[in-house]
């Protein structure tokens, strides 16, 4: 089932962020754009799931994604303003944006249990990919100490979200249908 449609392209983009797109690693302005876009994409998916899912646990998780990633982006925005860094669009942020749009388009065609599963499956893969990118590319490449510190600070949230999404994935698969 993995990579069965274009919605997963953003995840692929993150996975390859370390290699093709950045021979020398992304710059701080590029990292800022990746962080803000990655959060926004998950906020948008969360808002859709809050409105479309009929399962309480899925809606609660989706609302959590909206709240937490909004909190992270608020801090990221405040930091880039303070540092006078202008987020710079780059192949990874653009692919994330496109992948996020494709995911929304795919989810909008689904309903009920199929929607829940597709949303949660994507959340698991997405958070794993973000975590990998944070560890292998973003934190090692960040030059500014405060930007690096922000990435370190938000990392545990991605770990907790990933674990939460996996629990939900397991619950949904047990509920059958």
């Amino acid at each position: 089932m993995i990579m069965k449609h274009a919605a997963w392209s953003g995840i692929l983009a993150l996975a390859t962020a370390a290699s093709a797109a950045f021979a020398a690693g992304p710059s701080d302005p590029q990292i800022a754009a990746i962080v803000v876009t990655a959060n926004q994409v998950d906020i948008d998916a969360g808002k859709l799931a809050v409105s479309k899912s009929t399962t309480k646990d899925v809606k609660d998780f989706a609302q959590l994604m909206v709240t937490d990633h909004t909190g992270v982006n608020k801090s990221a925005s405040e930091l880039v303003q303070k540092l006078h860094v202008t987020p710079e669009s780059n192949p990874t942020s653009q692919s994330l944006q496109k992948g996020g749009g494709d995911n929304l388009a795919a989810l909008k065609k689904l309903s009920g249990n199929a929607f829940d599963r597709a949303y949660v499956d994507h959340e698991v893969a997405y958070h794993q990919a973000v975590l990998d990118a944070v560890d292998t590319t973003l934190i090692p490449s960040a030059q500014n100490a405060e930007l690096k510190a922000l990435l370190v600070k938000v990392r545990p949230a991605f770990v907790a979200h990933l674990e939460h999404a996996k629990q939900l994935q397991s619950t949904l698969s047990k509920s059958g249908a």
Partner: protein
Amino acid sequence: MPELSFARSCGAAAAGLLLAGAAASTSGATSAAVAPVVVIENVQFSPQNLIVKAGERITWVNKDLFPHTATADGKIFESQAIAPNGSWTWVAGKPGTYAYGCTFHPTMKGTVTVQ
């Protein structure tokens, strides 16, 4: 020791004051003069297992970028959402060990033991 500005809101000032005690609390120091504090950071409660005496005021301080709760099983205590940089205080009552967590983040677990 951070300076305390009384121009700040009560909540922020209280959080700053209590943070000063956090290091002692988390390092396991037994000074009775320091109010017990649980720092919520990195989507974890720290210390994860807190031991207090009945009647002590425990304060949870949220240093994460998004809300958390401190919610005991059976709602022995229930903070509701604690905003980023916000705090919540509970006065320890009946002795016992109370398991609690964050209702938003199921991976977060802790205990409070009241002696």
